[in-house]
């Protein structure tokens, strides 16, 4: 318990730092608001003269858009880009010299980032919901909420593990930002963070199911919209758990190899 307290304090300090850096925070939330509003108008325009699109009713697609925005704040909001910088600039030394697990430390930092974004996102979504009088497709049973929250939590872990590994590339190269941006874009696109993946051709959907990305946004939102049947839900959770186990082992291996290779340059 005492050991965990330090990570709780890290979480609190990053909250404080976020509040101290008001301008960055406001600009970031403005960006998120622009993305959500644009997607809302795009899908509203597409559904103006029809009741459904690719199997989605208007309330379902708008629920997807709002849900997508919420999940971006929980799953994709991250400060793992700082990992490679900390390695390359030698700032990692400060953590390696102290009795902290860097993996847990960075997770606490990520949680702080996610929670601030999540709260802001809820406020923004509620605002748009009230302003545009949006009709949403709310789940009919409480079990759906439980499964949705579970799927989002697992998605959050999956994406954190992926990002942690990408950050660890900094141990071998000082040029990890290029691959990271490319990967982030591909991940968001194939996760369903711009549109539902089942509007894509079937053969692409079949290929994507073997990658981690569809389980980050599309799968949890499919649960929320009650479009996934029991078979798909079981398959989705199994895939998430297998990915988490696999990625955890890989992240550990990358960290052990990388930290042994660490040159502590500039420190």
């Amino acid at each position, binding site marked *: 318990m*005492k*050991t965990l*307290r*330090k990570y709780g*304090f*890290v979480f609190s*300090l990053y909250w*404080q*730092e976020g509040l*101290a*850096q008001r301008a960055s925070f406001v600009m970031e939330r403005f960006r998120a608001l622009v993305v959500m509003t644009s997607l809302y108008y795009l899908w509203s325009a597409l559904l103006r003269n029809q009741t459904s699109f690719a199997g989605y009713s208007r309330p379902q697609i708008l629920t997807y858009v709002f849900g997508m925005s919420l999940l971006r704040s929980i799953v994709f909001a991250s400060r793992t880009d700082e990992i490679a910088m900390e390695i390359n600039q*030698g*700032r990692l*030394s*400060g953590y*390696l*010299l*102290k*009795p*902290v697990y860097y993996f847990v430390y960075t997770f606490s930092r990520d949680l702080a980032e996610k929670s601030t974004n999540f709260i802001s996102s809820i406020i923004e979504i509620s605002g748009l919901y009230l302003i545009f009088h949006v009709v949403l497709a709310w789940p009919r049973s409480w079990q759906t909420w439980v499964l949705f929250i579970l799927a989002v939590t697992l998605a959050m872990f999956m994406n954190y593990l992926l990002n942690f590994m990408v950050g660890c590339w900094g141990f071998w190269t000082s040029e990890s930002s290029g691959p990271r941006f490319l990967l982030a874009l591909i991940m968001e696109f194939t996760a369903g963070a711009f549109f539902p993946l089942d509007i894509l051709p079937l053969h692409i959907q079949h290929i994507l199911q073997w990658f981690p990305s569809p389980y980050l946004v599309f799968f949890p939102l499919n649960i929320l919209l009650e479009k996934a049947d029991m078979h798909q839900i079981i398959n989705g959770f199994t895939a998430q758990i297998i990915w988490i186990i696999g990625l955890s082992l890989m992240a550990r291996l990358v960290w052990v190899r990388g930290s*042994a290779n*660490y*040159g*502590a340059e500039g*420190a």
Partner: protein
Amino acid sequence: MVINPVIVASDLVKTYRVPQKKPGLAGAFNNFFSREYRNVEAVKNVSFTIQEGELVGFLGPNGAGKTTTLKMLSGLLHPTSGDVHVLGFIPWRREAAYQKKFTMVMGQRTQLWWDLPAWDSFLLNKEIFEIPNSEFDKTIKELADLLEIQDLLDTPVKKLSLGQRMKAELACSLLHHPKVLLLDEPTIGLDVIMQQKVRQFILDYNQRYKATILLTSHNMEDVSELCTRLILINHGRIVSDESFESFQARYGKTPLTEAMRAAFQQK
């Protein structure tokens, strides 16, 4: 009286693989397609033993291997070969029990949170090192008095002067009462008065807690006022290891800087 060796380094070697690039645009293109590396032996068979309570100057010109050796003693770097034991621990294993007994202060690096008051960084270290409340309160009072920083603790670190920041940095590094201090250029960039205060503090800490201190510095006043023993290193090799008195006796009334230069040239 039993004298315990606190730091034992035996035949330490550290080799870096350094990328090479020819100058100019042609060199950059060439480097883009084929990277060349060169092995640089930064530390060559370095051996020394330091006893409890000693205050040792580890001196040499830039690039001599001082900081690399300190990084191996701290556990930041794995030696390419050779052994090192500090307080009976193998540093690069990075065991929490070891990390709670030593500290490393790098003059040009800060562990303090830039946007937050130093007090928050102190509280974080309190949690990280699991310092009980009563001990923390006592230590903070003691350190704040010694370093005269009581009035600075509530000011954001970015608003502090370099000297004030260095004093806060020292206090933050010593909250857990380390038995071994590795100080890399602790007075770099400070004005004369501040240098004097920091030196006095290091001496007080050494005497009060019988702490073992290894410091690197290019400031000869640090050396003459603090060190009882000098280890000189050049081109990765130890060129001299003797008491400050015997070093001085060897060079008579020659100023310390000149004596150092002569010592390096002789070898």
